[in-house]
């Protein structure tokens, strides 16, 4: 449906470098990247407001640099909704139908069904200034969907909302996508959104495509330190592979040894280990975990409802308040950190 081929563009404040990706028909594609990294500009390029300096963009298999935005049939939802302030909710939704001269009966049908779908029937006569953020966002989504776009572009659609509204609308987006099957490109800096909504995730950092894959792939096996860093994989360990026996590599780091499932058999590597995959215990327990490291607690940090435990091995784990009390976790406590060989993801340095 959408293909970027080595697309580069310089906006002055932000540069896209040789970005290539393909979004399949009906796919929910999430572009994940740090805030302020020009993700909006990528969407505006798909919508036709910029022609890249180099590279090609194909829509439905056709090169589209000559196609005006109004001919692309894309729906666009901006972060702060961009509803027309001089029109009511219904007039906003109707705008695209009027411009396209959709017959009135058909138009009425579409408007009603979207008002219902997004639960805003009661708001149809209201002006945007009298709506909450969540309500405005629903109206903006309805306005984008009413034209039955080939592609729906969502620019950080949930980030200006409070937590509860965000969760509700996230579910809504999922439901709508299931119902409509519209090819969707959603840009965000929020990993949860990517994890919960995406069929595939593309991580863009510093204008470059850093990794692309299913959410599980990207989150469990980041392809570089940069991606791991951005995704908040706290434990990034640099080490050397000593040997590989039956698909289990032995990695030496900081004088410790750990075992990781990998096809790599030698050389310098980075090992990624998500803190939630580390189990802490008072005694060395017998488990299926291949790695058990005797450690000392260096530091305990409270992060909302959970606690982050920094160990002298350089690793950090997250645990609940109850575990902190039961294990008497405080600086100086001796503790065993266990984790499976499969929890570690190795990449070549």
């Amino acid at each position: 449906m959408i293909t970027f081929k080595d697309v580069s563009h310089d906006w002055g404040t932000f540069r896209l470098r040789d970005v290539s990706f393909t979004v399949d028909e009906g796919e929910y594609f999430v572009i994940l990247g740090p805030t302020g990294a020009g993700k909006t500009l990528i969407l505006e390029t798909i919508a036709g407001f910029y022609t890249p300096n180099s590279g090609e963009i194909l829509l439905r298999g056709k090169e589209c640099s000559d196609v005006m935005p109004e001919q692309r049939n894309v729906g666009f939802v901006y972060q702060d909704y961009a509803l027309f302030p001089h029109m009511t909710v219904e007039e906003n939704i109707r705008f695209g139908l009027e411009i396209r001269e959709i017959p009135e009966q058909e138009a009425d049908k579409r408007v009603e069904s979207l008002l219902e779908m997004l639960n805003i029937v009661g708001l149809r006569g209201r002006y945007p200034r009298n709506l909450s953020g969540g309500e405005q966002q629903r109206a903006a989504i309805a306005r984008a969907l009413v034209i039955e776009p080939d592609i729906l572009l969502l620019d950080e659609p949930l980030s200006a909302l409070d937590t509860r509204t965000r969760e509700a609308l996230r579910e809504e987006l999922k439901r709508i996508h299931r119902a409509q099957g519209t090819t969707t490109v959603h840009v965000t800096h929020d990993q949860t959104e990517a994890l919960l909504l995406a069929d595939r995730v593309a991580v863009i950092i510093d204008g470059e495509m850093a990794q692309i894959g299913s959410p599980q792939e990207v989150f469990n096996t980041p392809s570089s330190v940069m991606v791991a860093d951005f995704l908040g994989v706290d434990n990034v360990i640099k080490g050397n592979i000593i040997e590989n026996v039956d698909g289990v590599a032995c990695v030496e780091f900081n004088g410790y040894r750990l075992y990781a499932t990998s096809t790599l058999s030698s050389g310098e590597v980075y090992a990624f280990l998500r803190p939630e995959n580390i189990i802490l215990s008072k005694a060395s327990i017998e488990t299926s975990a291949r790695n058990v490291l005797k450690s000392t607690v260096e530091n305990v940090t409270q992060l909302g409802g959970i606690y982050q435990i920094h160990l002298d091995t350089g690793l950090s784990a997250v645990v609940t308040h109850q575990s902190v009390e039961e294990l008497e976790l405080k600086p100086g406590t001796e503790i065993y950190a266990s984790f499976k060989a499969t929890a570690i993801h190795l990449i070549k340095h």
Partner: protein
Amino acid sequence: MSITRRRYPLSIIFSVIGSVLLLFTVFTLLNMVARQILFDFGGLIDAATDSFVLESIGLTLYASLLSTIFTVLFGTPLAYVLARHDFRGKSLIEAVVDVPIIIPHSVAGIALYVLLMSRSPLGSVFANIGIVFEDHLAGIVAAMAFVSASLYINAARDGFQSVDPRLERVARTLGANQWEAFSRVTMPLAVKSLLSGAILSWARGISEFGAVVIIAFYPMIAPVLIYYRFTTMGLKGSQPIAVMLIIICLTVFLLLRLYSERWRRN
């Protein structure tokens, strides 16, 4: 318990100092109107029934209206371009727009006269198609437009700038071409600024004297007539017309403002 807003000493001091200028304006005008009404009401009646005076005031309002229409037609696209696009030389163009504000208006009048008089190359072209500027309505309109256009252009530019360009982009994705996005989204949202810019420009046209008097002494617009009567008949001959002009202008502007306020709210 009622909540009283705290008053800060500095705000009070500033308000007192600031009111000096306000009083200066209000008192100057009120004084003239009051003196006229109290001490020479008959003169005011005479002026109000003098067809020459009435025609002159009518001409002033009409010429300035034409000048405003001209300015709106050509100034709106310019204002939009200045609001929406960045390009080399933009600040130069913005400076050019503001030039008429800073040059003496008699200078503007002379410049216009030199450009548009029938003996000049451009003036003769216009004369051939029947448009003569010196001592004609066209000259008055040209002079008024020259001095008042910047007020409209700046107001319109600010108005367009206050409309989020993303609204236009959304309209485009919904199928609107550039003109439809402009006319159905940007224009309606900027119209209040355009309207107040037009009113301002109209008012400025009516008040113009220096540029007009050089290119078109006749037919006499009200400010020229007032000056003429002042130099030939003194205060007694000029003040009643001045008072009339003030009353008419203030009434018209007040009505326009109220009307545009109400129209905007609906």
